[in-house]
Every structure is written in C-alpha cells, then in structure tokens.
C-alpha cells in the first residue's frame, strides 16, 4: 500500500501535466510548483496525513477568498481542484495510517556491544585537551538543538533539576551548566564516566543503566535522553524508570531516530520506531501528555558556524542528515 501511495505521485503528476498540456497558462504555474513541493514533502514525510490535510486547509481558506469580489478570488477555482486532489491524497494516507501495522524494528537478536569499546572507537583519543575540544564541539552542535526544544518546553530555568541519560562526552550537560541549570550527567559506559569526570569535574556524572534503574536522591524536573532510546533493549523498564525518577508535572525530553533504513541498520540500534510507537509507549507508561515533533539537522554546516545547524521540522530521508523524533512527555 505504501508503494501504491508513492505510485500516486507520478500518477497524479502525469494526470496534472496531461491536464495542463491541453492549455498551459500562467495561472497553472503556482499549482505545478505547489504540487512538486508537496511531492517532495510526501517523500520526506512518508505517511503524514496531517501535512496533507494542513495543505488542503490552506487551499480551502484560499478558496474562501473567492467570496471577496476583488483580488485573490480569480484563481481559486483551479486551487479548488488542487484542494480536491490533496484531499484524496489525505484519504489514501489516512487509510495507510489506520491500517498499517506498527513497524517491528525491535532487534532483540542483536548482541549488546561493549559500550566502552564502542565509545573509544569513536573518540580515538584519551588526551584531555582533545577530549575537552570534543566536548566543546558537542556543546556547539547541541546549542541549536536545545534552542529548538526550549521553544517547546522550558529547559534553561535555573530552578530546574535536570538529569541526562547517555551524556557521552557531555555536550548537553556543558550547555546546561553554561545556563546555570543544576544538571547530573550519566552514561552506561564506565570508561566514558571516568573520562567525563576528568573533562568536567564540577558536574555530577554517574554510571547509570536506565534499563535497571536511575539512582535517585530526589525526583527531577527534567530527564533528557538524546539519541539513547534506540540503543535500549528493555524499553518498558527504561520508560518506567524514567517515569519514577520524574517529579509530578516534570518532563521527559528525548530524541530518537526516525526509522529510515540507514538508521535501522546500525548495529547498535535495537529499537528504531516511528512517532506513533513512542507516543503509545510513553502514554501506556503513565505519562499524562506525550507530543512528538519531527526534527532534522543537515550535516557539516554546524562546523562553519553553530547557528547554521538549522533544525528542520520535517523528517528528511537522506543519509548524513540527523532525522529524529523529538519526544516531550509530561508526568
């Protein structure tokens, strides 16, 4: 059915272009552009009926202008035809959404890696100066990422108590510290924990496997887990432990890759799922409100300047891009 849905794009495109071939006029041009954009959107979003209907809504409102005697109403009839086509797309996508099976990308057959070995193969150095530089780069890279999230849920409030799962070399905790937010870092790798303590001795950093529990002195206002959930095998345990460690009214904020093939195939990824799965998982674990957002970041640009690390609010299927689902779950 998904293939069929993709087949609709060239099919409709050929219908439209065939249609236009009869008498091409300037007023048709915006529709062609809009449709091509939509086609790209459709490919990048996979099955996102909400986007389709949002576009339809735009066309609909535009059609409403046809009741204003002057101005935009001139082209609304053709727009109406496009509204119809988008509406039909939306129906197909609703059908696919309603009848699709939850993607099963849980890989219990994979063997858990040695996390120490995994990290050090990536870092390739134990020199303190290099590690500090690495950590500072991470912080730079995360700055727009956290800015994007901060617009949805407050992160930089100094009264908050924050716990981060899977801090690695500490990009996020460094940023939090720069904003004077009390934060505790953690990781499953003992080697990384000891390295991080050397890099940032002033930040609490503990060894923690979220699947078995979060050492708790007091409940937290925020628990972060950026690009961590996909590495876990016992998701139910992990989400329950997160829930228990949060204050009432506190937020879990995390990201996890969208199930594109190049993310699914990574050897350390055990659970790569779409947003529906995550919403359902967190809701069933007792969170009162769970929202997800698509989030994509382009490669390389952040090296020129951190501000070029744009966050695109869509899923982008290309390799090299970070295309992830932002999960914000309230206890």
């Amino acid at each position: 059915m998904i293939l069929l849905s993709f087949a609709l794009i060239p099919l409709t495109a050929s219908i439209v272009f065939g249609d236009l071939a009869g008498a091409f006029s300037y007023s048709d041009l915006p529709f062609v552009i809009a449709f091509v954009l939509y086609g790209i959107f459709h490919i990048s979003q996979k099955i996102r009926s909400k986007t389709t209907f949002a576009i339809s809504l735009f066309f609909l409102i535009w059609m409403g202008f046809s009741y204003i005697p002057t101005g935009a109403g001139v082209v609304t009839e053709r727009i109406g035809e496009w509204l119809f086509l988008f509406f039909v797309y939306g129906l197909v996508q609703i059908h696919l959404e309603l009848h699709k099976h939850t993607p099963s990308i849980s890989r219990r057959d994979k063997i858990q890696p040695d996390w120490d070995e995994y990290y050090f193969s990536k870092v390739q150095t134990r020199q303190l100066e290099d590690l500090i530089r690495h950590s500072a780069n991470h912080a730079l890279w995360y700055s727009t990422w956290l800015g994007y999230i901060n617009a949805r849920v407050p992160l930089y409030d100094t009264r908050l108590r924050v716990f981060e799962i899977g801090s690695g070399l500490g990009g996020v905790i460094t940023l939090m510290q720069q904003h004077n937010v009390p934060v505790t870092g953690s990781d499953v790798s003992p080697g990384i924990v000891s390295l991080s303590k050397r890099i940032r001795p002033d930040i609490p950093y503990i060894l923690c496997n979220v699947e078995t529990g979060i050492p708790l002195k007091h409940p937290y206002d925020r628990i972060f887990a950026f690009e961590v959930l996909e590495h876990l095998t016992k998701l139910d345990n992990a989400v329950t432990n997160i829930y228990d460690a949060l204050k009432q009214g506190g937020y879990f904020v995390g990201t996890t890759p969208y199930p594109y093939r190049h993310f699914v195939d990574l050897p350390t990824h055990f659970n790569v799922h779409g947003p529906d799965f995550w919403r359902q998982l967190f809701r069933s674990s007792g969170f009162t409100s769970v929202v997800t957002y698509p989030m994509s970041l382009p490669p390389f640009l952040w090296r020129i300047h951190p501000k070029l690390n744009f966050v695109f609010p869509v899923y982008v299927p290309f390799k090299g891009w970070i295309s992830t689902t932002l999960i914000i779950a309230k206890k």
Partner: protein
Amino acid sequence: MRKVVFLIAIILFIIPFFWVKPGFVDLGGDAGRLYFLDPLTVAKNLYDHQSLAWASAYAILPYELALAVLKKVVGSATTMIAIDRGLQLSLAFYSIYLIVNTLLSPAKQIRSFRDTCAAIVSGIVYVGFVSSSGWALSLETHSQIFLNPLIFYLLLRYCLTSNFIFAVCILLLTLIYSGNFSFSGMPQLAAFYPHAIGFLLIFITRFIRRPVPWRNLFILGILFVGLHAYHIVPTAASLLDKSTFTHSYVFGSQSIQESGVHYFDVNHETLGKISTPLFAPARSPQNLLILFVPMVIFLGLMRSPSVLGEVTGIFFAVTLFLVSANITKIGVGLYQKLFYIPGFMMFRSFNDKWYYVFAFFYVLLFACSFASVIKNRKTWIVAALSLFIIGSTIYRIFPFLQGKAIDVPHYQSKNVSPIFSIDPNLMDTLSVVRTLPEGKILTLPLTFPYYQIAYGKEGGAYVGGSLIISLTGREDYSGFWRFGNYAQKMFDAIHDEDIHTILEILSTLHVRYIFYNSDSRIMDNFPDYPYIYPGLMYSSKDQLPAIRDQAAYAAFLAKFPLKKVYEKGVYSLYEIEYVNPPVFTSSFEVPTQEKQYFTVGRGISIVTAGIMIVLSVWELIWRKYKKK
C-alpha cells in the same frame, strides 16, 4: 437533550408559516404545483389523462390525494404549502440527527452528550446545505432533501432490526411522495441510492459486523416496484416504445450528442465551480461562515482520523467530483464520456442533480469530524463549539429562514414576485370553462413552451403550466410547443396575419374556445421570457407584430369570427364561429393500447398494496405471539 431536538424540529416546522402572508401562495414554475389550490380536481384531471406522454406525471397522484385529505383539514393553500415546507425542513434535520446518532454509536441505547451534540449540529448544518437551491417554485422532486436521509435511516433500521414496520414506513413514504420516485425524479434517485446503499452495506458489514439481510432487501425491492407499478409500467412502456419522444430523448444518439455532450461542453465551466457546492448557497459576505464546516472536517481528520471518517470521506470525494464535474481536464473528459451511457444524460445539469447526495455525504463527513474534534473535550467546550457552529449556520442562512429564498422575481421579468393571492375573477372564469360544451381551448397570449401568466389580486403573478388543463381538465393550447407539428405553420400564419390558415389549424386541432387574458402587465412586465417563439432564442415579440402587445392582440382578435361567451375582469372567453365547424371531440383522446398499460400498472399496485397490508398484519401478530 431529546426535548431540545424536538424543539428544534418544531421550530423548523413552524418557520415556513411566516414566509407568505395568509391568502398568498407561491405557485408556478415547471411543476406549476396547482394541486395546492385544488388537489382533488388536479388529481382527477391527471387520472383522466392516461397518455404515455404523461406517464411520469401520473406518479404524483397519491401525493395529490394526500393533499386533498389535508385540504379537508386545513382548508387553505397557504397553510398546505407551509406544512409541506415545514415537513421538509424539520424532517431533514431530524433524519440527519437520527442517522448521525446511529453512525456514531450504533450499539448504544443511551447516547452520550457529545454524540447528541454532534448529531444536532449536523442536522442544522444539513438544513444549511439544503437551503441553497430548489425553494423558489420548487419542483415535485424537491422533497428528496428530507426523503433521502429519512429513507436512508429507515433502511438502516430495517437492516439492523429486520422489523417489517420499517419497510412499510419506507413504502408508504415513497408512495405518498411518489413524484420523487418517478421518471422525473430519476436523476436524484440514481444519484443518491447507489451511493447511499453502498455506504449502508459497508457500514453494516464493516462497522456493525452483521450480515447484510439480502432477503429482506429483495422483498422490499419487489414491493417497491409493485407498489409503484401504476407509473413504472406506463413509463417503461413509453421508454421502450421507439415512437415516443422519451425513447428518442434517452436512447437517440443525436439527442445524446446535442442535449448531453454539447450541453455539457458549453455549460460545464460555468456550472461546475468546485467552490459552489462547498460554499453554497449565495455569494454574500456572511457566506464565508460556511468555511467552518470544511475546517471542522479537516481538523477532525487531522486530530484523530477514524475508519468511519475515512469511508465517509471517500463517498464525499466521489460526490464532490460528480457535483463539480470540473476537476482537471481529464476529469471533464471522463464525465463527458459518461454521456454515452444511455440515461446518463439526466446528469447533464450535474451541479443540481448530484447536489442532494453530495450534501448528504458532506454532512456525514462533518459529523464524523465534529465528533473527533469534541472527543475528550470538556462539556462546556463541546457546548460552546456546538452553539458556535449552529449560530454561524443560522446567521449564514438567515435570509433563507426569513423566506427570501422563495421570493425570487420571475425569470427575465421586471421584478415580478412569484408570491400572489389568487384573483377571484380568474377562478370564476375557470369555473365557467369547466361547464363549456365539448371542444378544446386556445389560451392567449401565446407563450413558449406552454406557460401561462396570470397576475394575482394584489400584485405578484403566476407563471407556470396551463391553469386550464390542471384546474378544469380541459385540454388547451397555451404555447407554441403545444401545437406540435403545427408550431411553425402557426407562427408563419400569425406573422402573415393569415386568419384563414389559423382557423384551419385551430379547426384541425378541435379548438372551439379562446381563453384570453387582456391584462397588459403580463406582456409589459415580461419583455422576454416566456414570449420566445419557435426557432428563436431571445425575445420574439418583435418577430410577430400582430401579437406584440395587448393592443395588437385586441386588434388581431377582432379579425376572427368570435362570439363572446363570458367576461370577468381581464379574462374573456370566446367561441370561434367556424363556417364549417368540425365535430368537436372530448378533451382527452387516449388510445386504448396506451390505456392498458395504466390498467395493468394500477392492478399490480393494488395487489402489492394488499400483500403489504397482509404482511404487516402478519408481522404484528407474529411479534405479539413471539413476545408471549
């Protein structure tokens, strides 16, 4: 909440009573609707007129008889029209309310507050949709605005309960409103029922998970055909008879090309604006409020799409394509190809013919979406949203609720209102016509196709089918169309003021009397339509100076050998004094062969009615026995 529903239904029923002043009526148009004035006489005349050419019109007999009974009770034509319209509005609302309630919670006996709100709002929104067309001089098939949802609901109940009483209700409704189930109502029938039944079957099998009661539906189908045989048999005979106009119109390739394909080619761009069905009824600023309806649909589908919403959406999309018939050039081409299917020509005015089914699925999709929007919302939010949609709909259709939809000036007239009170002079003259000896009547002034114009006592005018044929039962020639093959010859003779030829034609047609309306307003205030003569497209008055206006008519008539029989007000009756008078025959001459179709049809209908009564009684007894 049930009290609120009844209150709304009653208010909707009462509203049309304020549309026209007591003693006034809005009659005329293609249907004429003169049965509101004297239903029994009109029914009797129709019954006597058993000709295949009139086979379709014959269907309306039970409705006229029902009106005759109503007339005995209420007496006034004004009240009868108001009751008819009140029923249309309130039953349209109530049927949608019942359908939406059943669709949203089919298994529940007690409906939730949210479902009830969704059902009420949908009912009002549907009334908003159906306010858009057909109210001015409404056609006999206009009752489909409430018959469609009501019969759908009864069918749904019949399929769910297998209770024969629902089938009886359906059959009785279709019988009383059989004009809507006749050949004239075929476009709306063929548009609505295939879609509605398809949706019904999907709903039963997919959502309620019950087997389709094919046996029950088959019995219902047979009883329907049997009960309506009195007009189906003659209509079928007229369709199959290659010599009839109906046959050549439906099956003739020239007719398909000219009246179907060509008509569509010329009109599809103006008629098929996709925004028209979505934003009906009129281009007024408050009409922008209708945007809330599709917006609710989008928000509902975005918030939590349901399988029911998806299925309804598919039917909505199909009907939106059909009602606009103008979606992409390929879509237009596809629709054009459909005309080559015999009978599809009935959908050439696609914007009208598909509108009823479109409005039905539009409102069902709205109901599903509105239910999604208000799901899990606080009670006050649900109530506020419902009141907002109801309020905006009422504000949008307020001119309609004030009765402005029926007070639309006559086509191409000088602002002449169709609302009038009957002129007693006209009625007196018509009663004299009834008593005249044998012979047919020529009605003057001549129009096209066969319309007659008569002013009311206090302004306003009737423009519609012949008053004489409907109210007196006498056959008349009221327009050039009625002359048939003699139309052009008559036109030429009038043009040349050739009295001899005119008398010759009239003698051949057994015309003995002339009914003349000398009211100057009926010509001066109607400069163009309906004075359009054979072979001409626009106002033809100048083409026939002899009958250009009333002064010309008076001078022209003075040249004929006439004897005045009766005069009252502007109405006069003359008898033509032929030199060699023909033998005047009775008003209606129907070949015996044609009569037999009517006899057979009536026989089948009566037998079916008998079977229906027996089955109903059996069902009641069986149910009582089962209970014991």
